[in-house]
């Protein structure tokens, strides 16, 4: 167990806990954006920065990545910390002015969009990387990742074309904090066009960002989506299962 102080309050937590998690135990609020409890910490948005003092040295660090140390002193709302949080929100307000979550966080901290800087248009993506981490860590598919670097960095599918590995599970859509990913459920019999691609007939799911449109197999009993048809067919043939094996979803089968 490790003992540390956050905002003059002491807390004891198991080794390997991050400052963010330890703060939660004390009900101390630290704003976050790129963080998600089911994903590995990234430390990219810098919103969760805190001041840490250890061995007489004070530094700013992201609380989501810093693992606690014995005797660590943490301050979560110093002037330095506030300055960085204000900067991050101001910059994100110019980059993605329409992102609701950024607006909410900014309002919370009393930050307004700086008029001096020209806002970027029509791009909700704040490059938090949650979609990528979710795809890689939770789903295990590795369909998308960052491409380019610096200001031109973007989340992409290979060659900006239709992702060959995406299974249209939708986790990226659900985990995106700003709604930068567009997903559409195509009803049975309805027709829709995949961006830069062909037409699909529902039941199907289109994820516009990765230019993917996959016919989805729905459970014959409860109507819930099981998985893309082509993946199930591939599995079924590989393991030599009967034709109607995937017609009922796992929960209905129980």
């Amino acid at each position, binding site marked *: 167990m490790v003992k540390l102080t956050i905002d003059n309050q002491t807390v004891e937590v198991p080794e390997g806990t991050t400052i963010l998690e330890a703060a939660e135990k004390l009900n101390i609020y630290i704003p976050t954006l790129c963080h998600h409890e089911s994903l590995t910490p*990234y*430390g*990219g*948005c*810098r919103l969760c*920065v805190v001041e840490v003092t250890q061995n007489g040295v004070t530094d*700013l*660090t*992201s609380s989501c*990545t*810093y*693992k606690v140390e014995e005797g660590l002193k943490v301050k979560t709302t110093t002037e*330095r910390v506030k*300055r*960085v949080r*204000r*900067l*991050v929100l101001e*910059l*994100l307000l*110019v*980059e993605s002015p329409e992102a609701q979550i950024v607006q909410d966080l900014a309002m919370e901290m009393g930050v307004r969009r*700086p008029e*001096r*800087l*020209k806002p970027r248009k029509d791009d909700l993506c*704040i*490059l938090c990387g949650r979609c990528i981490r979710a795809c890689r860590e939770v789903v295990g598919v590795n369909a998308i990742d*960052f491409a*380019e*670097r*610096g*200001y*031109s*960095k973007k989340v992409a599918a290979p060659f900006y074309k239709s992702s060959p590995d995406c299974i249209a599970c939708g986790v990226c859509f659900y985990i995106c904090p700003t709604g930068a990913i567009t997903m559409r459920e195509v009803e049975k019999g309805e027709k829709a066009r995949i961006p830069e691609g062909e037409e699909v007939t529902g039941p199907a799911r289109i994820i516009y960002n990765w230019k993917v449109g996959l016919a989805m197999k729905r459970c014959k009993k409860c109507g819930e989506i099981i998985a893309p048809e082509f993946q199930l067919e591939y599995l079924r043939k590989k393991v030599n299962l009967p034709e109607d094996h995937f017609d009922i979803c796992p929960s209905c089968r129980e």
Partner: protein
Amino acid sequence: MSSLKDLERLKAEGMNSLFPSKTKIMVGMATCGLAAGAQEVWQNLHQEVKKRKIDVLVKKTGCIGLCQHEPLVDILKPGYPRITYDRMTPEKVGEVLDDLVKGKFKKAIMARIDQEEFLLDDTRTRYSKGKIPAYITSILPYKRLPFYKKQKRVALRNCGFLDPESIAEYVAKGGYFSLVQVLRGGKPEKVISQIKRSKLRGRGGAGFLAGVKWEVCRNADGDGKYLICNADEGDPGAYMDRSILEGDPHSIIEGMLIGGFAIGADQGYIYVREEYPLAIERLQIALTQAQEEDLLGKNILDSGFDFEIEICRGAGAFVCGEETALIQSIEGNWGEPKPRPPFPAVSGLWGKPTVINNVETWANIPVIIAKGAHWFNGLGTSRSKGTKVFSLVGKVNNIGLVEVPMGISLREIVYEIGGGIPNGRKFKAIQTGGPSGGCIPKNLIDLPVDFDELKKAGSIMGSGGMIVMDDRTCMVDVAKYFLSFLEDESCGKCVPCRVGIRRMREMLEDITSGRGREEDIDYLQQMAEAVKEGSLCGLGKTAPNPVLTTLHYFRDEYEAHIRGKRCPAGVCKPLIIYSIDPENCTGCGVCLRVCPQGAISGRKKKPHKIIPSKCIKCGACFEVCTFGAIIIT
């Protein structure tokens, strides 16, 4: 298996090579030399030697530092001091050889060297025997040249003095004997203690105490430790590491072997940026030679110590000079820095304890072992021991590589070593530390060069780039330039760096185009300070330094651009006008012919005129006018 006897054999071979019985001609073949035309000189030299059927040795050598005078050709005739010809051309080679055959040396000689110095064992061996002819003593010895007078070459000890492709010459100059000493002693802790006592600070930029880093790594848990040489010298204007790699590659290998022994690693990597192909080539040759002599591999010098070194090529990413990003790159990933802690000394390459040090740091190690920590402490200031290599470039007369003891003042470097500002212009600022550093103004020119003093002034030591600027350098343009560089090189992970640098650069574009606003100076200051605090890694944390120092010391220039919409130094294109001075213009028409836009008009022998609306300010006319008639305001 290598032994002391093998080293002695190599030493004898090397001594014969350093003091041959035949005349030896050395051509400076580092990248600067080649860029100045040394390849053609080399080829011509071989041809002319063959034509005259003279029995001479022709060898390559590294950069002796006075790069602006390249191509440099040195002649070592047995019994005579070594003499250097500068600015050699393929055409002049024949004449020089003719004089050599006749027993005379042509007058156009730059300098002479009377003795070969052996830094590691404090000896020197004179080249000449008996009386030296007057026409040679009339040539200035290197040490008396203003450029070299105050230098002390430790890391550069062998550059320009040996053939970098000869392991024998390296051994003859004391090379690999420090390794012998270390392995003989058999105690890694003693080595670490010696490096600690020397107070050697990393030469890559951060200036962290090398010995402490080594100790942390040695004590860290982990089966399998690694050593890395950071040769991703990305700071524009800095080429110290390149010169060491091209001129004395074995010094790095020896340094790493000693380091490997000290921390308990058996594998080392040298990460070289791919923009340095010659350095990579020289390193590969040196590694092969060391392997052939069993100085790399298993059971080196019968000590039970195993060590291998592998070269990794960079792929065009400045951020990979940052240690955690470098590690990512070696692992085959994106060069995205990771938050520290954990520090690489505890958890680095493949999660194992790793020591990363810069090229120059490694080059110092064999010297510290041979001459002791006490000797090293005798150089430099109280908190910055030893010497530092700087690349002195920009608007200064003597451009080149200089190695000086820490504590020397900027004034001495610029005016004594550098020979002052050319073309009668005035010193304005000196930029240290590359894109992470800052611009130091005239009133601080007596600042002693040392890690802490530079930091106090708002800059950093950095890797050693020193760019001298005169009154025709626009400081706002300099700030914009560094921001553009870092914007290009940012990995993009964190918001303050990715977006902050870009937005600051956009504001500087506005300012340098006459679109700046009154509030911009304060806003830039605020944003710069916040980016400095909020960024994840060193790149973002130091990116605001050029902006902050120029705002601090050259605020008036910013104000001139914003309020007056002018560029006092005559640099920012949207704010300058090219015109022709009718008093100086002879109407020769050369400018008219080179102008790509046809923006110059005029009749023969009559003063010409530039049409402002057509002029794209490309500078072609300025380049060709020999009458100084092109004016930029």
